[in-house]
């Protein structure tokens, strides 16, 4: 423990350097632009609850679905050296199932919401198992395997919805997607915290972390050490399925509406980016869940910053792309090496000049 702390101080944040620097830069940039950018106020919403408001809340709240997906995506990336590009479509399916079950109930109680979520989770896990089977059993490259669900997932969601965009009205649903009475923190934020803790517990009470990393780094060696590599890969997809269900249900609950075309549209790319910005290798292996979560907040902070700057709507994506390219390039091994070399030279130069002075 002590040694850890020492290394932390000495070597910096390691894998988390880039995402933390990105957050810091965005914070500084916004504070210069508008010193009140991160101020938090308490307002009363239209249902009479006292709630927190402000850009910081918007960022943390808005990134919830992305953060949860990033957790699952990190696991899949680590175990399979590839990414699941069907998470958006699968979330639309999960959301549709959620709404379908809710609408078939005569009245919406906490019990029906839990039942609806469990149904959504089971369906999402089954689709995860489908992707996982293609990857783990049939050895198909993850991006290709998940391309199938990416292509047809939203059609399946449409089919479940029976067309159009069904809506659900219920105080319980709006509590999940927005604020619960008496709690000033947005519910999605609380759900992210809960999911993160659950995953931390999973890592604590199982050997999932080391097994997943071993499979991702050296599958052949992992197999010869008795690891069931098929199971580990399949499991990563099923766990991602759980994450998909949670974020799908949050997305639906925010507005009480399921639009299979737009729910979490393009989120797969953001989720993959969050994993990368978090300093995790997209080539699998070692991973840090916390990195990916921070990565998700970086992406959201960037979006909100651009909105706040009123960047013209057509340009937002381009600006986002520029910043992300910068982040990814800065985090690349080539730049890291150069930087280390540069720092090394700097130090050497310093000590040399000192030497001269001394003489």
């Amino acid at each position, binding site marked *: 423990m002590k040694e850890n702390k020492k290394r932390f101080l000495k070597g910096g944040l390691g894998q988390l350097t880039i995402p933390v620097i990105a957050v810091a830069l965005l914070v500084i940039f916004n504070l210069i632009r508008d010193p009140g950018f991160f101020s938090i106020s308490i307002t009363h919403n239209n249902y009479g609850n006292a709630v927190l408001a402000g850009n910081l809340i918007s960022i943390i709240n808005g990134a919830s679905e992305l953060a949860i997906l990033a957790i699952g995506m990190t696991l899949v990336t680590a175990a399979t050296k590839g990414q699941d590009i069907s998470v958006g479509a699968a979330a639309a399916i999960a959301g549709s199932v959620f709404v379908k079950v809710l609408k078939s109930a005569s009245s919406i109680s906490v019990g029906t919401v839990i039942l609806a979520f469990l149904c959504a989770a089971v369906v999402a896990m089954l689709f995860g198992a489908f992707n996982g089977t293609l990857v783990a059993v049939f050895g198909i490259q993850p991006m290709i395997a998940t391309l199938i669900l990416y292509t047809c997932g939203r059609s399946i969601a449409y089919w479940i919805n029976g067309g159009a965009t069904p809506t659900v009205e219920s105080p319980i649903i709006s509590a999940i997607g927005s604020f619960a009475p008496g709690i000033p923190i947005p519910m999605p934020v609380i759900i992210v915290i809960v999911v993160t803790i659950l995953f931390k517990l999973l890592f604590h009470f199982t*050997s999932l972390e080391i097994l997943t990393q071993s499979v991702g780094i050296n599958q052949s060696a992992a197999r010869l050490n008795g690891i069931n590599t098929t199971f580990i890969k399949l499991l990563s997809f099923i766990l991602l399925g759980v994450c998909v269900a949670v974020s799908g249900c949050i997305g639906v609950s925010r507005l009480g509406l399921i639009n299979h075309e737009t729910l979490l549209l393009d989120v797969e790319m953001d989720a993959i980016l969050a994993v990368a910005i978090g300093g995790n290798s997209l080539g699998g292996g070692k991973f840090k869940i916390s990195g990916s979560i921070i990565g998700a907040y970086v992406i959201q902070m960037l979006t909100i910053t651009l909105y706040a700057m009123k960047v013209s709507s057509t340009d937002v994506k381009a600006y986002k792309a520029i910043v992300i390219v910068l982040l990814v390039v800065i985090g690349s091994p080539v730049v890291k090496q150069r930087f280390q070399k540069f720092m090394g030279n700097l130090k050497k130069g310093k000590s040399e000049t000192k030497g001269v002075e001394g003489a």
Partner: protein
Amino acid sequence: MQDECLLKLRGIEKSFPGVRALHNVDFTLRKGEIHALMGENGAGKSTLIKILTGVYQMDAGSITIEGESVNIHSPQDAQNKGISTVYQEITLCPNLTVAENMYIGREKSSWVKQKEYETKADEILKSLGIPARSSQQLGSCSLAVQQMVAIARAVDMNCKVLILDEPTSSLDDKEVNMLFSLMRDLKSKGVGIIFVTHFLEQVYEVSDRITVLRNGEFVGEYLTKELPQVQLVAKMMGKELDELNSLSDAEDREEGVGEVLYEAEGLSSTETNPFDFKIRRGEVNGFTGLLGSGRSESVRAIFGADKVNSGKVKINGKPVKITKPIDAMKNGIGYLAEDRKRDGIIPDLSVRENIILALQVMNGFFKPISRSESEAFADEYIKALNIKTASAETPVGSLSGGNQQKVILARWLLTHPDYLILDEPTRGIDVGTKLEIQKLVLKLAKEDVSVTFISSEVEEMLRTCSRLIVMRDRHIVGELKGADLNQAQVMKTIAGGEA
């Protein structure tokens, strides 16, 4: 004398953060000589070669090529100055043809037509006696031929200095001989060859001169024929070899007296023919045979590493089913795989994580080994096996080969196996570690652990095993014990000289 000198390195210094890799190292290569660069792992061989090939920049010192002082900035630069390297791992593209591999990335301005360079390539291959056609896909050639193609590519680039880094470690004897005749041929053409290897016999077979490094320092340069093998080892290790001798005393070993621990009848996998095998408690046996004889495949079948097709297996007399590694592990079998990089280490994970991996898998998914427990295990074995690492949290991939091997050994020792299979545990590691591993095997046997020990160095097996199973063409062709355990008898059995 002076004009013969091709390459001269003087006073080379190189440091990495926290480590001094080279200190005041000299090296001289003459025209038309094969010069072995020797040293244990971590002696500085790789660093010196990387400086020569422009991968690293030296901190101080001088390099002269044919009397002209030079600086080598990059691998490209080294190539332009006539220094070419062929590595242990083939760095060519297996899915291109031989000719394409020989010319890829070289044609500067004009686009040489395919036919044209196929003809050119064929000429060179023929002149060097390399058995390959230029239009053939490189991947379809044997590893030895691939290596020779890499050499041919270097030769065709008018190289004056050819560096061969562990070129023989994945070749069998015949292929090694082919390579050696190519090396002698190049030598007669005036090329200077720097030969890096772990195989002492090969050094004596082919080299003219030997330079020894130890702990990053220059020990000395010797004419091969004037330096006895024992002395070479002594110079590399920096101590006299009482230990080596003490080991070979262990001749009073008999076939294990304990009861039979493991017994297989008609065992076969997708890679082997059915075979019978048994081992007693506390016995050390070995599988020997040429590369490809099926010795590794047999032990893989025992461990369930390949798909098992048939066979009855008993452990302690009770029938068990072993179809995959975890079955074997649960029955007390450990397996150190032949290819450390591919099947052994998880390079990005720490030494600690690598050590506890197998035990963790055996404990099961829901019983993770706690951090403090795993730290204790790691510390214990780092100490016990004298693993040289900065800390338990260092990624295992950054350790030297010998220390990586010790980590994997620790991994299996931690599972407290009844039966430990070690496939080439000493390959590519330094002499000191080799000795340590051999001693460890004998110690385990005393503690009643059964060990199967495979090595391509027969001598090593003769020193440790009380019974040798000889294989040829995927069949067991003999079993040697007692008085038959000598080099001549082994060779005879391998070659089929009996009857």
